[in-house]
């Protein structure tokens, strides 16, 4: 393993991310802010939703922005770089085993996912105003869940990025990302689906459910949630599967 090469590639991704910092932040912040304002401020202040809904919503918003930004940070460049320009080739020719490049992409994606999650917390707090009651009493669990969620998003981005072509990006957003967000228990706790038993178990295939519920359990434990240990175990399994599948697809795509 050639750490110098690995580090150089990480700094390349960091350099590119810094160059696009403002558009990237706007992209990562705008949607969560709009959601927070409409659901967390307008609906609650007008009395259509209870004030305590804010505590349900915020962890979900963080989960969405982490998962989306991780997927985007890894999948989009991969899709572009594997297209006919084959931009990725200069890194595939660098003196390092090929799969480490995929690992590097995943780590860069994790960093971006964590940054977007961390940026959303204070911003959403400000937008939501009074009535938010977050707990930071489980710091270790919070950190573990955050790391697993960021890995989930970037390993998912790796798998998606190596599975689809440029022409299918629009399709991916409407067919994969949109249902994932709606049925990801981001806007409601998983227990709220109890009235729809079939759906309640069907949504468990959606990785975003574990992200939302995991962050809810660590940030707003007063809201009903799936037990955090169970979430951590499930996330660990999903992460491993996505990472293994993603690495396989990557190495297959990297050589002809």
């Amino acid at each position: 393993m050639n750490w110098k090469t690995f580090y150089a590639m990480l700094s390349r991704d960091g350099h590119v991310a810094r160059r696009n910092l403002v558009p990237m932040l706007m992209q990562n912040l705008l949607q969560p802010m709009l959601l927070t304002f409409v659901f967390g401020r307008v609906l609650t202040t007008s009395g259509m939703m209870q004030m305590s809904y804010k505590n349900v919503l915020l962890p979900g918003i963080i989960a969405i922005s982490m998962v989306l930004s991780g997927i985007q940070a890894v999948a989009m460049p991969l899709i572009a770089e594997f297209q006919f320009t084959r931009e990725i080739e200069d890194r595939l020719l660098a003196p390092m085993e090929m799969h480490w490049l995929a690992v590097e992409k995943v780590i860069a994606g994790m960093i971006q996912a964590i940054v977007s999650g961390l940026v959303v917390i204070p911003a959403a707090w400000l937008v939501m105003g009074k009535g938010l009651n977050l707990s930071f009493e489980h710091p270790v669990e919070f950190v573990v869940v955050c790391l697993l969620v960021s890995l989930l998003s970037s390993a998912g981005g790796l798998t998606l990025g190596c599975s689809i072509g440029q022409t299918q990006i629009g399709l991916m957003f409407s067919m994969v990302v949109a249902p994932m967000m709606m049925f990801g228990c981001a806007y409601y706790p998983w227990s709220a689906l109890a009235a729809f038993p079939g759906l309640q178990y069907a949504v468990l295939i959606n990785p975003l459910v574990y992200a939302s519920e995991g962050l809810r359990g660590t940030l707003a434990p007063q809201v009903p949630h799936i037990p955090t240990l169970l979430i951590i175990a499930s996330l660990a399994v999903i992460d491993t599967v996505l990472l293994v599948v993603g690495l396989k697809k990557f190495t297959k795509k990297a050589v002809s």
Partner: protein
Amino acid sequence: MGIGIRIEELRKVYDSPPPSAARGGGFSFTPTRSAGPKEKKDKKKKMEVVALNGISLEIQAGEIFGLLGPNGAGKSTTIGILTTRTVPTSGRAFIGEYDVWKQQVNAKLLIGVVPQRPNLDFALTAREILTFHGAYFGQSAKERNRRADELIEKFKLNDRADHMVRGFSGGMMQRLSIARAMMHDPEVLFLDEPSAGLDPQTRLLLWEVIREYNKLGKTIVLTTHYMDEADSLCERLAIIDHGVIIAKGTPQELKASIPGGYLLRLRFDRVNDELLKQLRAISGVTEVRPKEPSSTDVYADRGGTLISGIVNSAQAAGVELRDVSISEPSLENLFLHHTGRSLRD
């Protein structure tokens, strides 16, 4: 020190459409069409493209070696296998002492690659492309900045060095690709169709750079379908067609191997046995090859002075001579001799 290359019985069969660089066509930006769900099933069974069919080669340390052949002959696939970008179906390839597919990292440290189509990192500026490339190869900040400055100067990229490469012209991208490949001072430099799409001036600069780099004791492997490039630049050549090597040697040896050397392509109103007999009897003619439907290729040790003999033969055979074209000994003729078709067909 100098690093040689050895290829043993290399075979490559693609079971999906070959990558576009290997599919030939120079700068043809043909996107890989993904098959519909229906045709995918039956296509999977049928799709089998033999790109290389048992190629063995030895390239000496410090030589300029050329792979010559038409589009789709297997040149890019050969380069792909030697540069860890294409997995061989069978056979082995060595860069120096390293088996390319078993000791990839060691092999990658020794090689620099200029691809057929520029694959520059569009998220970076020209200078950054060079410095990050240096960083991937473990160069210190000082070293990579110095080297980048040198190469930017050498390839005349000064005024655009700090621009994003997205807006660069084809020639500039190609120059930058070559600069990038030289950034880590590789022992072996691979250039896949380096002068495709270059203007004549840039082409001369490129040849100059290649010769200069070779003088430092570096091994150069290039593919081309330009005869003049192969002829003037390469010390040794292998001519590839349909995935097999049909001839190899120095350009002089190869040209000398064509019977006669001169090629006269003749066209008559019709060709009969009497005519062929007459033509074979002309002194200086080494080989006569009738072609469909009314042409004949004559290989001979001289050119224009044979015309009167040919006219006489035609008259004696009762046929009319319609067209004559004479070409001097060249690799083009060699290719034609071995494959029966022109390089550009």
